[in-house]
């Protein structure tokens, strides 16, 4: 069976994940990182990864013409993914479904290779469960008195949402990456239903029932109305778009944003996001260089604000950086066995390929059974306004912790 994988724009994590298909001898896989250089040939199956812009339509149509099946692999291709947050500033990141009609979508950030194998081998997919069914935490769904942007990770039995810590698990399917296992709330990369972000917004808005909300007197109606001024409800969620629509903005039905753009798509993805979310976003979109990018951001903040990190943390971080260079080597050689081994090692330390376990000041979950977790546990940190620099990364945050400006040298 002839399979071709095409990488369009952005992060290449899903693209390299398809190297694992080479472990199956029946499939002849070829990875094409520049679709414009592809010599058109008749193929059985085309896999499309990376985010798409309307300008890519021509190449997508050519691919469709030459292949029997087209599969969108990963959130960027199926729903716009994290890069589509730039649509807030007028960019037009488009899901594959609105460019051509394709029947096969593999959601998730990172896309699940097992699910892709089922489609390639034309087997029926196993029935998926809601994420809350497999989560160890238990929910009461009581009204919240306040929303927390960060929590201490001592309580591992109460639902994140009950702790006032937004988790998108309500609308998500059970997945392979399982951020929830690493004391990180679900970001909703594998939605179970359509317009998941809007539904989650309704759900969380209801949960916020006890949070103070401002009303004002309406002159004309002579009764009370909902006030326009900021109150605890809006103050406690400074970035609704980034928290609820992180992966699904183009398919959510919301209009394209009118916020002025900086001109660069990558910068527009980051501006407006929150500092505590930053390592999670870089972990998502850094491709095979996500570890060094995430660590650069974390370390610049730690250094400037004197957040102490232990020897154990440094050791694990150094190990991760070493694994990253091994990963880059494995991906450039397209060595499936080596890729599998390296990613398994990365998953052991960083939790998953989205690096959920990495955080400011340490790690969120115990890595080895026999080491002392207290020595490298991350804690709630203070949000400090300022400009942070580290090598190719340069960003500034405002007093609320919202990213004002960011510069990342690509490559």
């Amino acid at each position: 069976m002839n399979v071709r994988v095409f990488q369009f724009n952005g992060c290449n994590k899903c693209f390299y994940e398809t190297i694992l298909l080479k472990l199956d001898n029946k499939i002849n896989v070829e990875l094409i990182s520049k679709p414009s250089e592809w010599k058109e040939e008749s193929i059985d199956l085309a896999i499309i990864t990376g985010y798409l812009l309307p300008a890519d339509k021509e190449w997508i149509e050519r691919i469709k013409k030459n292949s029997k099946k087209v599969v969108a692999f990963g959130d960027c291709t199926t729903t716009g993914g994290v890069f589509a947050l730039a649509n807030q500033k007028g960019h037009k990141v488009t899901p594959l479904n609105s460019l051509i009609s394709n029947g096969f979508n593999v959601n998730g950030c990172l896309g699940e290779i097992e699910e892709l194998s089922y489609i390639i081998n034309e087997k029926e997919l196993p029935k998926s469960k809601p994420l809350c069914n497999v989560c160890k935490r238990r929910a009461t769904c009581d009204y919240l008195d306040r929303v927390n942007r960060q929590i201490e990770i001592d309580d591992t039995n109460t639902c994140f949402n009950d702790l006032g810590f937004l988790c998108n698990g309500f609308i998500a399917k059970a997945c392979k990456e399982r951020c929830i296992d690493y004391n990180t709330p679900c970001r909703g990369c594998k939605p179970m239903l359509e317009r998941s972000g809007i539904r989650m917004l309704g759900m969380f808005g209801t949960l916020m029932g006890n949070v103070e909300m401002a009303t004002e007197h309406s002159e004309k109606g002579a009764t009370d109305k909902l006030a326009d001024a900021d109150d605890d409800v809006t103050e406690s969620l400074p970035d609704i778009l980034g928290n609820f629509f992180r992966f699904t903005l183009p398919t959510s039905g919301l209009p394209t944003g009118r916020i002025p753009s900086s001109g660069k798509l990558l910068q527009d993805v980051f501006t407006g996001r929150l500092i505590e979310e930053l390592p999670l976003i870089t972990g998502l979109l850094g491709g095979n260089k996500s570890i060094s990018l995430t660590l650069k951001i974390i370390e610049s903040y730690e250094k400037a604000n004197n957040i102490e990190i232990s020897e154990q943390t440094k050791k694990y971080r150094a190990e991760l950086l070493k694994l990253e260079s091994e990963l880059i080597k494995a991906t450039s050689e397209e060595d499936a066995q080596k890729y599998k081994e390296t990613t398994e090692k990365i998953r052991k330390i960083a939790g998953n390929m989205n690096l959920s376990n990495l955080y400011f000041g340490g790690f969120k979950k115990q890595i080895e059974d026999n080491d002392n977790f207290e020595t490298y546990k991350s804690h709630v940190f203070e949000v400090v306004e300022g400009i942070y620099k580290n090598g190719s990364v340069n960003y500034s945050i405002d007093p609320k912790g919202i990213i004002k400006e960011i510069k990342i040298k690509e490559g």
Partner: protein
Amino acid sequence: MSDCEVIDEEIKEKIQNVVVFMCNECGQGSANTAGVARMAYEPAIRIVRVQCTGQIGPIQIMDALSNGADAVACVGCCIGACHFFNGNLLSMHRIKLMKKLFKELGYSDQFINQYTSRAAEGETAVGDFEDIVDRLTTAIKEEGTIKDEC
């Protein structure tokens, strides 16, 4: 936003459909009272009767907006007087989040609003309708409609 500027005469034409979800108790009650007293209100107002404004959330609001409504508003019972315990407060929380979301996208937050009214006083509902249209007019004047996409 100079491209979005609209002259005053055009605004009236732009406001054709304002969907107002009114709760079956105070909201619809006061609209009925206004009807009995033959009070006049804007023809653009389209009333949808619901049991309680607590039934209205982001999904219903987005459905209305994406199917051609120029603005959406909820009219419920007065604070503390909801006939279903706290439905009006819950929908106010959700609508506040929706307003913030529209602001984050660079649109005016006046496309979505929530009001209260009293069943015995028809003028509260009519006053709310007037306020909705006034606020929408100012919003369109300054920042254009949602459909303009400018």
